[in-house]
């Protein structure tokens, strides 16, 4: 039998032995143990080293509030640091390590920091490392020198470098009542609300439902509380209206009664089930919330209160009653309230000898005296602990007479031998979620605690959360809360379970700190002492918000759970003000640490969905290198063996200009604009006229934003009197749709127009080049495609390989070109038919690079030039600005600043040193490689032009039009590309358009 395992009792399964390792050493525990309870059962008392001083630390609590026993859990190569050992359920094969120690937990070299304690007190970092560099050992530069060593020495666990292979998921849930916490109050609330017909979710952060019933040792309705709770919990699990979420921490309370919770689905499993996520991020939208989150016991602040072996009294009670683990063999208790007496009884019953109970209060009730005498403990009323003895384990304590009204110690100190000291500084209701939800907490002077604020959203509190600390009260309040949440009312004659317990006084003495020589810790996790709080006060950091930031009190995983009230009390005493006047910090989400993976959820490792065109598989099968353009995946090149990217696109572009090429343009945004007012609508949104467009014709259109800046361009086809097909650039499809919808809904609701995204309805292929028409003529049935039937910007309907198609003659490449559209499900069929028809003519498929090359040669603009800063004039598109009608942006586009001749204007660039350009490179009038300056613009797109046989680019250059023919320099210091360029017109190739007009 383990040295500290009680011979019987607890909610663990003693028949199941679990094997795990801690710091490489093998241990055993039982199913139902936490890592903390299992290690304690094995006699381990040293769990970690503290943050700043590397002081040895044991385990302080039995739950999520644990500040000391933070460990790293390893799964394969993945490490999860800073997990409270009190929340880790052990499983066969669990591997855990202690943290912040080198070389080992027992012998830690940085423990020497304890001697330098004065040097690294509150504000150490600010004082030493901030501000101007005066002298070598001060200021920000000194920080840069020291950072590496400090980061290594201070802090908690180390994050792993290996990728986390776990799966994470999000779950959206809706309910009528969310019950947070499953102690007696939560269980009652859930059962009552569900019986009333409400849809209920119960979230419990522990594995076992029942909360305090699991460890109170009380009886409810004549049976052990734990059995009562287990019975009720079973009922909830099988209730059709209830979803029970164990191992689920509700960590955020947001607007509209939306709560965030983290379910640890597989952390306790040796082998997660197939497809099971490690964590599930629940987003729960509920009509009402019942907060039954209980209360947390507070420590007392006295010198040496952090020594391993010092533990919260009711944490030890929980270890004894719930896990059958004894916190010590000879135990002393130190308290300012009655709850420690119940802890003493629990430990004594479990087999521990109780050496003494030290109570700061001058008198205690007879009921508590009786409890104490049952345990055989000696009571020292009006006394306080002033020191603890031992090194990595407690050996004894020193006590002294203490006056709780003024904090004065008197008389000789004496030593009591004990290997465990249990302390209780009163209870703080766990009001974090209520605080997140909005209102300020209110101080209760009798309970010496912040109680929940008046509800600001639809939540109802129950039990210890309300400061109602007895089980009978919790049951009654849970019942009332459950009824109220489900829209009912409690009746006086409701027959409720009653707890059988020796009633204690819930009010503690107003004692938080014993001031004696030595470090008394307020925030154990950050090594913030009572003296640090006073130092902050002396240095003027009197606001609680400043105190928190200056001392780090209550930061990180603690979030004020352990340190909040003692820290405030000490600051209040220093200020000479009552606690409520000092105030408390507002609790913010998360209540407890949340895995980042759970927030990424199903997107973890897979950031974006892929949008695929109908011909995607064909491209991949035919050697295309795919390229992610936004969400779309598009062929970049169809490379041949041994070709570079440049060789491939040059070949594709050259072949297109010499014979014919075909490109997948299915990604173009397509919006059906339908209705009797469709033409009028288009006149208002485009800068040019569309009402004059004949049916069966297409027109190039430009849209501006309201502020007169260019927004998007594309062709719009008139398919019928009331039926237009608008195309947008691939990247802007969503933005243009929203823009149009806004105007239709908000500005012109009287127009009868329907807008529908039909991007995915159509597969599109653009086929261009001198042979394009011949290829089409050979495969299109049902319509001629000659110049008469299909003039420039004309549309015909026919069939290719039995499939109906629309063919529009328009050109992006500058060649004689056609866009062929068909139903997307026929896309590959028609594409293959075009490829087959083109074989005798030498047709090649081409990708984005060749597409870009040909459009740069033609000087066509895309999103790189329509960049949200350029106007139609900047892009030489002023010929499209109709003067016959107002349109979106027409009023604002003529403002002085937008019409100025020295704006950035679109130009072409020729490389004069026969070297390639890069997008983003600056253009300068004078070259100064050492000190580049005086940018007059930048390159927006660049390529090798097979048509011109040289490297060219499009650029936006100050007053660019006036610079045609002049020389400048490309200056790209990051990529070390400098050299001469010639500024020319952006129409590099066939400026008259003779090729596309045929």
């Amino acid at each position: 039998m383990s040295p500290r395992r009680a011979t019987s009792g607890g909610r663990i399964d003693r028949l199941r032995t679990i094997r795990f390792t801690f710091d490489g050493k093998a241990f055993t525990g039982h199913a139902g143990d936490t890592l903390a309870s299992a290690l304690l059962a094995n006699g381990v008392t040293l769990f970690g080293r503290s943050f700043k001083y590397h002081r040895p630390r044991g385990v302080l609590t039995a739950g999520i509030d644990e500040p000391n026993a933070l460990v790293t859990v390893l799964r394969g190569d993945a490490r999860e640091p800073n997990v409270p050992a009190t929340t880790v359920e052990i499983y066969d094969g669990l591997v855990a390590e202690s943290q912040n120690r080198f070389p080992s937990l027992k012998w830690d070299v940085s423990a020497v920091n304890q001697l330098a304690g004065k040097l690294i007190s509150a504000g150490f970092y600010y004082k030493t490392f901030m501000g101007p560099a005066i002298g070598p050992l001060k200021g920000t530069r000194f920080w840069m020198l020291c950072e590496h060593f400090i980061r290594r020495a201070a802090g908690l666990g180390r994050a792993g470098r290996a990728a986390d292979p776990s799966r994470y998921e999000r779950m959206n849930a809706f309910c009528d009542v969310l019950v947070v916490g499953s102690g007696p109050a939560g269980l009652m609330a859930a059962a009552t609300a569900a019986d009333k017909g409400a849809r209920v979710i119960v979230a419990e952060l522990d594995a076992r439902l029942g909360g305090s019933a699991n460890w109170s040792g009380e009886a409810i309705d004549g049976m052990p509380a734990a059995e009562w709770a287990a019975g009720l919990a079973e009922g909830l699990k099988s209730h059709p209206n209830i979803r029970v979420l164990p191992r689920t921490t509700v960590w955020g309370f947001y607007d509209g009664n939306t709560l965030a919770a983290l379910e640890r689905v597989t952390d306790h499993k040796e082998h997660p089930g197939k497809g099971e996520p490690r964590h599930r991020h629940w987003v729960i939208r509920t009509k009402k919330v019942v907060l039954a989150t209980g209360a947390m016991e507070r420590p007392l602040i006295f010198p040496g209160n952090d020594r391993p072996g010092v533990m919260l009294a009711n944490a030890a009670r929980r270890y004894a009653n719930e896990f059958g683990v004894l916190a010590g063999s000879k135990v002393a208790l130190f308290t300012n309230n009655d709850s420690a007496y119940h802890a003493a009884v629990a430990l004594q019953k479990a087999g521990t000898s109780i050496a003494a109970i030290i109570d700061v209060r001058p008198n205690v009730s007879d009921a508590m005296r009786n409890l104490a005498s049952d345990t055989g403990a000696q009571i020292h009323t009006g006394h306080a602990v002033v020191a603890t003895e031992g090194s990595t384990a407690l050996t004894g304590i020193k006590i002294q007479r203490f006056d709780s009204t003024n904090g004065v110690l008197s008389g000789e100190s004496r030593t009591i031998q004990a290997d465990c000291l249990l302390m209780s500084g009163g209870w703080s209701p766990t009001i974090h979620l209520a605080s997140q939800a909005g209102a300020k907490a209110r101080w209760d002077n009798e309970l010496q605690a912040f109680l929940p604020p008046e509800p600001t959203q639809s939540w109802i509190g129950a039990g210890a959360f309300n400061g109602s600390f007895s089980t009978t009260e919790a049951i009654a309040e849970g019942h009332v809360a459950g009824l109220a949440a489900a829209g009912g009312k409690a009746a006086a004659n409701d027959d409720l379970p009653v707890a059988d317990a020796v009633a204690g006084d819930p009010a503690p003495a107003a004692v938080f700190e014993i001031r004696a020589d030595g470090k008394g810790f307020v925030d154990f996790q950050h090594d913030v002492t009572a003296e640090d709080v006073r130092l902050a006060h002396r240095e003027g950091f009197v606001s609680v918000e400043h105190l928190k930031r200056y001392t780090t009190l209550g930061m990180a995983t603690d979030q004020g759970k352990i340190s909040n009230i003692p820290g405030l009390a000490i600051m209040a005493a220093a200020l000479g003000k009552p606690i409520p006047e000092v105030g408390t910090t507002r609790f913010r989400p998360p209540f407890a640490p949340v895995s980042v993976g759970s927030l990424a959820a199903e997107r973890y490792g897979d950031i974006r969905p892929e949008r695929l065109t109908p011909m995607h598989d064909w491209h991949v099968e035919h050697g295309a290198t795919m390229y992610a353009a936004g969400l779309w995946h598009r062929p970049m090149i169809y490379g041949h063996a041994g070709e570079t990217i440049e060789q491939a696109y040059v070949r594709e572009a050259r072949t297109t200009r010499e014979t014919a090429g075909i490109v997948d343009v299915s990604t173009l945004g397509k919006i059906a604009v339908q209705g009797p007012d469709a033409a009028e609508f288009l006149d208002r949104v485009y800068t040019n006229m569309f009402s004059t467009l004949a049916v069966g014709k297409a027109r190039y259109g430009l849209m501006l934003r309201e502020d007169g800046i260019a927004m998007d361009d594309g062709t719009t086809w008139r398919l019928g009197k009331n039926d237009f097909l608008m195309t947008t650039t691939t990247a802007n499809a969503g933005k243009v749709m929203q823009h149009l919808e806004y105007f239709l809904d908000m500005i012109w609701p009287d127009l009868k127009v329907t807008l529908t995204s039909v991007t995915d309805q159509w597969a599109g292929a653009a086929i261009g080049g001198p042979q394009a028409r011949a290829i089409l003529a050979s495969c299109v049935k049902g319509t001629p495609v000659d110049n008469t039937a299909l003039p420039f910007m004309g549309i015909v309907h026919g069939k290719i390989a039995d499939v109906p198609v629309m063919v529009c003659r328009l050109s992006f490449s500058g060649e004689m070109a056609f866009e062929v559209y068909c139903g997307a499900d026929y896309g590959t069929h028609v594409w293959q038919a075009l490829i087959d028809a083109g074989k005798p003519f030498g047709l090649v498929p081409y990708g984005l690079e060749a597409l870009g090359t040909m459009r740069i040669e033609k000087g066509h603009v895309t999103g790189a030039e329509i960049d949200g800063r350029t106007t139609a004039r900047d892009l030489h598109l002023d010929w499209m600005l109709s003067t016959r009608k107002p349109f979106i942006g027409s009023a604002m586009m003529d403002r002085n600043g937008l019409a100025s001749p020295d704006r950035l204007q679109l130009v072409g660039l020729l490389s004069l040193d026969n070297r390639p350009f890069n997008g983003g490179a600056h253009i300068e009038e004078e070259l100064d490689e050492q000190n580049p300056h005086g940018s007059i613009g930048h390159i927006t797109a660049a390529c090798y032009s097979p048509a011109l046989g040289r490297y060219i680019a499009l650029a936006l250059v100050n007053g660019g039009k006036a610079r045609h023919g002049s020389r400048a320099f490309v200056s790209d210091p990051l990529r070390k590309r400098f050299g001469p360029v010639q500024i020319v017109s952006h129409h590099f190739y066939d400026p008259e358009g003779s090729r596309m007009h045929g």
Partner: protein
Amino acid sequence: MAERLSPLEPVLRPGSHGQFEDGVGVVLSEVAPGSIVQLAAWPGQEKAVIAAIKKVTGLALPDGGVANGQKAAFGFAPAKFMVMDEAESLSEALTKAVSPETGTVTDLSHGRTAIRISGPKAGWVLAKFFAIDFSLVAFPIGAGRSTVHHDIFAQIQRSAVDQFDVYVFRSFARSFWHALCRASEEVGYEVR
């Protein structure tokens, strides 16, 4: 006429997958209706459009929507409806029945992909993606919902107690299918 090629066909793996040893939680399949058509009514013409749907399909569109196995219809936005048919020529028939003074008809037969998810865990799996309430009280049979999962717009119709038909943009269909399969692994799934 040529065969229509679904974006899902090349990636469908019929059979049971994931943790199915204790039975499958969901069945995933592609519905592949011949026609998916969107109708929009001008203000005050909603009843006329509903009447046209009834005339062409025989579907009496009640307050939410209706699905009968071969045909389905539901409202997805104010005065807007989706109508589905196993047959291919629905768009032409509806265009004849809805005059320009009444509203518009838009053929989306190729533009949307319909994925059916059925089984006791259908709501559970869909709730991983969509922030809407899949309980029967909040989402009755026949009703439709417009919602979104990050970039993926979806229109969802509950076609039976444990069955939902999810209409997504065709280009996203394969990505969404993979995500759906992955999300279904823990409950075990069958692809049909």
